[in-house]
């Protein structure tokens, strides 16, 4: 079975193709070279006037695991406005009212309708990994994967405080990836979630966790080194200390230097780019942050753009979420300490353009997008659902690609916030090639998905076809065709076939001796058996609708 996509206008940054007219051949789920003349082409689709990209990859989206499910449970009122049968509900306006915590089924459906073919859960608690995989297993249409959280777990902090050698740390990190079936390592408020359990309320980069007497900087050094040494593609995924605090940009700048040049990814950096200037002691430090990213080639970042409307923030950072819970809207929140492993904080938020802080947050995110020069090192996220639901991506893409549209939105902001932002002075408009870079090629490269995010020979045939339009929000909201692993699953914005994606993991090698210390620790301090902590491939794939892919070289 060969499918030919004819006359495609291809945007494939992995192969430097910027609007190149090409034919694409699909066979058995993969992109193949032009078949010989004797081979039968079973189906031909003429894509004249269409833009073709690889399926988009959301490299940071809270789609699986305890936090978002708590949000669903806590916020039944969100569901009452759910009317997905209305087609226009798929196109987000500036006051997008999309529901922030869709069911697992709707999560997969809404992603594929926008041409996204993969999403990665960025904050899997190791102890909660089984739940994360169960939820992702119930998410149709897209590929999934996750980054496991370390750096606040007592096992690691004990190793670090006891000055364990780097090899021991590396083995533990690699073992954890196997046990939790993940593809990357995340650290959230390094040391801070643990410190909160000892009643510390803030933790700066060079301040010690009161119990372990280790600093966030030491944690970042140790974990970034481990990730480098075990040889996985995905750099350490860092949620910096001091999330959301005025003046936190200095922590973020200092964090960039904490890994001694080893690659690190700083996530939802918008929430970490705040100055403390002005009457309201809250200002944009986007320029300093963007300049530092431009000058530090070992740093990548995703933005975590906020968009106005009701959403819910769900984070492992219970230290900072406990502070943020004062701002909850509606007034309720969940704060948890979890299993000597981590924690979580779920706080509903309503971002309003007439609010000074919210308006400036919006502007800061866009300033960063537009000031970071290299689209391979900055990624399009709203930190779903924290900044906004992922369904707002088409709207965000238009803000990046359309300066008049952006300026119009800016003019509606709180006036004091307008006075504190240089956004209108930035002329840049993202090109289709740059959008394809940050939502496809760059994301696949960052995570280490060799056969995704591009349209070269041998790539998995995750392909999105858009109809070129001036209104980029309309264009990116409703692709003409989406192929998942070679199967046509979306046509004219409508799902025509339900498929189940794969689970991407990395399984670096480790010394089996690592389990000796872990077994003793589990037997003495944990409340489950070590063997039951580990997740088998079969648990993810047993129902025949999922498959575990190992990307370790």
């Amino acid at each position: 079975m060969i499918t030919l996509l004819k006359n495609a206008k291809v945007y494939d940054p992995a192969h430097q193709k910027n609007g190149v007219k090409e034919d694409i051949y699909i066979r058995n789920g993969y992109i193949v070279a032009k078949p010989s003349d004797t081979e039968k082409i079973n189906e031909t689709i003429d894509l004249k006037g269409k833009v073709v990209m690889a399926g988009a990859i959301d490299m940071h989206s809270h789609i699986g695991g305890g936090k978002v499910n708590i949000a669903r449970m806590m916020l039944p009122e969100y569901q009452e406005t759910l009317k997905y049968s209305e087609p226009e509900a798929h196109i987000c306006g500036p006051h997008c009212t999309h529901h922030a915590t869709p069911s697992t089924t709707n999560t997969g459906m809404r992603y594929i309708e926008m041409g996204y073919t993969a999403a990665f859960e960025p904050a899997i608690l190791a102890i909660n990994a089984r739940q994360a995989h169960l939820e992702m297993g119930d998410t149709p249409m897209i590929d999934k994967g996750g980054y496991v959280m370390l750096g606040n777990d007592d096992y690691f902090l004990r190793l670090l405080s006891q000055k364990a050698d780097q090899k021991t740390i590396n083995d533990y990190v690699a073992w954890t990836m196997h046990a939790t079936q993940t593809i990357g390592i995340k650290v959230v408020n390094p040391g801070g979630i643990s410190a909160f359990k000892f009643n510390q309320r803030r933790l700066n980069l060079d301040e010690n966790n009161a119990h372990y007497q280790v600093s966030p900087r030491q944690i970042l050094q140790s974990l970034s080194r481990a990730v480098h040494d075990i040889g996985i593609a995905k750099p350490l995924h860092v949620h910096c200390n001091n999330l959301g605090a005025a003046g936190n940009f200095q922590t973020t700048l200092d964090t960039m230097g904490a890994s001694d040049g080893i690659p690190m990814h700083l996530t939802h950096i918008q929430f970490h780019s705040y100055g403390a200037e002005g009457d309201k002691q809250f200002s944009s430090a986007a320029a300093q942050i963007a300049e530092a990213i431009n000058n530090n080639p070992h740093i990548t970042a995703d933005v975590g753009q906020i968009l106005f409307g009701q959403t819910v923030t769900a984070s492992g950072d219970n230290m900072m979420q406990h502070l943020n819970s004062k701002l909850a809207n509606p007034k309720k929140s969940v704060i948890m300490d979890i299993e000597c492993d981590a924690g979580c904080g779920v706080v509903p938020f309503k971002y309003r353009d007439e609010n000074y802080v919210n308006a400036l947050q919006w502007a800061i995110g866009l300033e960063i997008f537009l000031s970071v020069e290299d689209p391979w090192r900055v990624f399009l996220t709203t930190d779903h659902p924290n900044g906004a639901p992922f369904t707002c991506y088409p709207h965000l893409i238009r803000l990046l690609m359309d300066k008049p549209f952006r300026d119009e939105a800016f003019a509606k902001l709180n006036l004091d916030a307008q006075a504190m932002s240089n956004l209108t002075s930035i002329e840049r408009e993202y090109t289709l090639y740059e959008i394809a870079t940050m939502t496809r090629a760059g994301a696949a490269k960052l995570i280490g998905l060799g056969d995704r995010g591009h349209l070269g020979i041998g790539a998995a045939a995750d392909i999105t076809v858009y109809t070129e339009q001036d209104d980029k929000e309309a264009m990116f909201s409703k692709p003409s065709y989406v192929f998942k692993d070679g199967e046509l699953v979306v046509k004219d914005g409508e799902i025509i076939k339900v498929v189940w994606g794969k689970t991407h993991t990395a399984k670096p090698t480790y010394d089996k001796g690592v389990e000796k210390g872990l077994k003793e620790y589990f037997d003495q301090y944990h409340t489950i058996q070590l063997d039951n902590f580990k997740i088998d491939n079969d648990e993810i794939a047993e129902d025949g609708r999922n498959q575990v892919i190992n990307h370790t070289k």
Partner: protein
Amino acid sequence: MQTLTDHHLTAVTCPACGLLCDDILINNQLQNACAKSVTFFTQPSNIVLPSVTGKPVDLAVAIKKAAAILNTASNPIFTGLSTDLTGFRAVFHTAQKLKAPMMHMNAQSTWRNTKVLQSKGWQTTTLTEVKNRADVIVCIGSDMISHNPRFFERYVWNKHALFTDPQARDVIYLGGEHLNTHPGISPTGKQPTILPCATKSLPEVTAALHALIQHKTLNTTVVAGIAVAELQALAERLRQAKYAVLIWVAKALDYPHAELTIQNIIESVAALNEHSRAMGLALGGSDGDTTVNYAHTWLSALAPAEHDLTQHDAMVWINSFSHEKSLPSTTAPAIVIGNSNLHFATPPAVFIPVATPGLDCSGTLFRVDSSVVLPLKKTRESALPTLADVMTKLDALIT
């Protein structure tokens, strides 16, 4: 014990209560098992045929009859829901197809907690944190062990803890009736503090404690038989704690508007967390209720709610784990899919015996404190079909 497998099995998870103890050893006999655990693992392997109004029939005939009832019903309900994740996923699929609501047999008590979550949220911890960190443990309205028999053994009087001396923990019982407080005595003989009051007085007692934690003054010296000075001392002990844990079992708070008591507890925790550290913890749990609560939520984006069973013209009652749970009374035709040892005063319209997860087949369950999800092992040979097998066949006949 002859029903247990002859194989040596380690790290077996027990689904008999919400704690999901997974240190059970099976080697011709059970080790580390509490009384509930023994009852669960030694229940007879009873091979019975499905039945229609009490008459034995083939599985296919029973499924066909069940489908006929459901296809003609205008408003069926799926209840009981005592099963594991795989079973629930299958039930959910068919219930969605029929637009039928789903309600777990423990919905009334679970809903007490959910109401608080949905009005105020909560601040809670989990069992490993209790084991390693808690220096003050307040059991509110329950002795815990009647619901979770190994609570004190595994999480309070443990030998090893990372951040606290387990033997030095302060255990306080606040309210509740017919309590067995003996397990609250430490192995070194340290006695618990007991502040007795009737269960139904807990709303005012917890409200008073909440006020005292916030340094408010009460214009009385006694609340529901407890001296305010004693509640004052408790408030002070909680403020001074390194990590206080306030525990309740929603099922034990069985009186109207018990959610307001739970809200008092949660708000007390929130007040303590302004300056020191404390957390709440809801225990209890059974029959896969936590699993159903969570999976229903991610599959539908809504927590399951309570429903009135009398408003439905057909009832599917699912009860995999325990034959001691009785079929709710109903005038509608009942389709029972469950434990092979179930007995009925009046035979239901259809009875289909199925495998019990953790015994006759493997499975997956959530622990009562959330976050922890554990695999269940198949611990004996069985020819019974799984709930998912039955639901798949039933689903195929739903029109």
